[in-house]
């Protein structure tokens, strides 16, 4: 059998290949589990690097450890897996065929940087154009910027490269990156990317000239490859619910209302604030932080399902105020009920015992902003006593709900999804197995379990050459 992709070693030798779509924690896990069981695996990832959402997280719950640690282990496992091929900037266009015998059409966007790149950064220094850094999830963008963030080109050539005021206070500015960039410091593959918006400009030439290794290839074009695969693991993960749709909470109108993901970026020492916990409106310390649970979840006007992670995320993030401001830090969690199950209950108890963390049982009705101080003021009635409150805080964090990244008609194949858009395990899906947050709202722990289960299903298909025991498994 010829190599499935020219220049890609490993996959496609003597047995069926497993295609993993999505290189987040679920996709990586599924790919590794399958390949470490001796299977040929191709992992495709839309972004220029693997790791997905977890690369943007500051800490994991409940151990409060840093995700980079586990990611590093996984990166090492990938490097040690000769039967695993990773394609970045690649997406699945279509899938034809049946279980055990699929033809996948994969589109690979040009990176304009080949594998000779040493990540020395000379190209980034030479290039002048700057763009908003999508890695930071819109943190510091105004609502107007946010809606245009995806198609940002007007703000292109601001070569001024202001030293983005490290110690200065003042409104939070959106993080910027060069037109030639490493997506984030630990990005793997450790290779720079040229933003397609600089191609054809003087900057592309500058990058080319700056590279001493011949790693810049401006003639790269989009290509589509056909892969013969036996099974597909669909691990496209989740995206945050659009917070601006929760109109009474003022996201996008009130600068000091951010999402839980934006808080994670803010805490990153290499992030837009240098790890400082501040108010986007004025850059002043955010010592008194409110968390609003079920922001978009468990709400028939928004997402009907419980997003499961948000309670634990806010409990985790409530430690951030103490981490940055010690006894001066305060956190208040507004909740309907706290869903910390099994062993996670211990973490909840631990947080609850901290006198600096307050719990108010109430779904906040609306948020207004104090015109002078910019303080967001939370209004509502608390369920334990039915008292009305109007509480000012420095910063409000919306524990934003999870929804599947890919939904509706965007699947490149027929698949059974449930009411909330997550993929159902269904015999009609053939040898397409969903993993991680494509199946449900899951935390990292449960995503990894789900991915391992999906890997086993795929391995069974490869071993049998078709869908094993399909009929008998139906009850």
């Amino acid at each position, binding site marked *: 059998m010829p190599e499935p992709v020219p220049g890609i070693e490993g996959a496609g030798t003597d047995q069926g290949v497993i295609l993993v779509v999505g290189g987040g924690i679920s996709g990586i896990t599924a790919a590794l589990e399958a390949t470490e069981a001796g299977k040929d695996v191709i992992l495709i990832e839309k972004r220029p690097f693997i790791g997905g959402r977890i690369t943007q997280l500051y800490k994991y719950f409940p151990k409060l450890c840093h995700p980079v640690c586990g990611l590093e282990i996984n990166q090492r496992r990938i490097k040690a897996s000769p039967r695993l091929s990773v394609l970045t900037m690649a997406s699945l266009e279509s899938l034809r065929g049946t279980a055990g015998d699929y033809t996948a059409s994969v589109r690979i966007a040009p990176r304009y940087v080949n594998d000779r790149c040493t990540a020395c950064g000379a190209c980034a220094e030479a290039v002048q154009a700057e763009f908003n850094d999508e890695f930071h999830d819109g943190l510091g963008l105004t609502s107007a910027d946010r809606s245009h963030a995806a198609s940002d080109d007007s703000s292109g050539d601001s070569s001024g490269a202001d030293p983005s005021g490290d110690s200065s206070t003042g409104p939070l500015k959106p993080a910027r990156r060069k037109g030639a960039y490493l997506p984030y410091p630990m990005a793997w593959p450790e290779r720079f990317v040229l933003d397609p918006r600089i191609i054809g400009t003087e900057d592309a030439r500058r990058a080319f000239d700056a590279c001493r290794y011949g790693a810049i290839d401006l003639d790269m074009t989009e290509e589509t490859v056909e892969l013969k695969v036996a099974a597909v693991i669909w691990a496209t993960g989740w995206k945050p619910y659009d917070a601006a749709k929760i109109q009474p909470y003022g996201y996008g109108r009130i600068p000091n209302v951010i999402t839980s993901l934006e808080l994670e970026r803010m805490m990153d020492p290499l992030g837009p604030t240098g790890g400082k916990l501040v108010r986007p409106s004025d850059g002043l310390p955010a010592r008194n932080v409110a968390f609003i649970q079920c922001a978009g979840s468990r709400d028939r006007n928004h997402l009907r399902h419980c997003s499961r992670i948000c309670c634990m995320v806010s409990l985790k993030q409530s430690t951030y105020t103490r981490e940055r401001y010690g006894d001066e830090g305060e956190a208040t969690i507004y909740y309907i009920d706290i869903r910390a199950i099994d062993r996670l209950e211990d973490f909840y108890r631990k947080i609850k015992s901290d006198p600096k963390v307050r719990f108010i049982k109430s779904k906040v009705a609306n948020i207004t902003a104090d015109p002078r101080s910019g303080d967001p003021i939370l209004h509502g009635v608390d369920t334990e006593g039915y008292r*009305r409150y109007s509480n000012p805080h420095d910063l409000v964090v919306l524990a934003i709900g999870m929804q599947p990244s890919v939904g509706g008609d965007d699947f490149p194949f027929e698949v059974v999804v449930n009411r909330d858009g997550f993929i159902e395990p269904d015999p009609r899906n053939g040898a397409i197995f969903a993993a991680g947050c494509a199946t449900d709202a899951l935390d990292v722990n449960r995503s990894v379990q789900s991915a391992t289960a999906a890997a086993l299903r795929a391995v069974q298909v490869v071993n049998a050459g078709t869908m094993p025991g399909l009929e008998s498994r139906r009850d």
Partner: protein
Amino acid sequence: MSENNNEMIERYRGNFLREVEDNVEEGEWVKMCMQCGVCSGSCPLGPHWDFGPQTLFMMIRAGKRDEVLAAEGPWMCTSCYNCIVRCPRELPITHIMHGLAHYAVRMGLAPKNQPTRKFSDLFWKNLKADGRVNELRLGISLYFMHGFVDGIKTALKKAPLGLGMVRTKRMNPMEFFGGHKVRDRKGFHRMLEKAEEIESARIEKGPRPGAE
């Protein structure tokens, strides 16, 4: 009325949630409330009522029959629909509030001097007479809602407005003595009687079939 009340007490024997489900408009939604509080927090009349929707729903489940039916809260509802729009479980809260108010009247337990209730009574009496709202007479009866002296004072205060309306032909003073009516007044009254008859029969029959 209170006979009606005793009968309901007898029939439901302390299961007030069931009584609400069976007899109050949209009452079957009450059990869906998850006590998040967004309705009470969103109510513009919030600082003024005794009990908001969230509290009332909890009280219904707790069997606080007398307190719920005598509450001012349901009468304060201005139908702004903020609560319905924000309720994460899509409870038709506004309609439940109106349903509770109506049921409280039927049971003879509605607060006696609640202004909204008084207005509703006046409005209904006014409409029922001729099948059309006589705005002049309704307005004047509103002036005198709080007693004769108050009425005279309000009337004098509003006189320039009234005269202005007469001058611009927005109001006909002759309306006071009769005014416009529906064409078939007798038929209209027969229709109302029939509606009342159907409603009473429904109440008489008790819980809706299938509600066990």
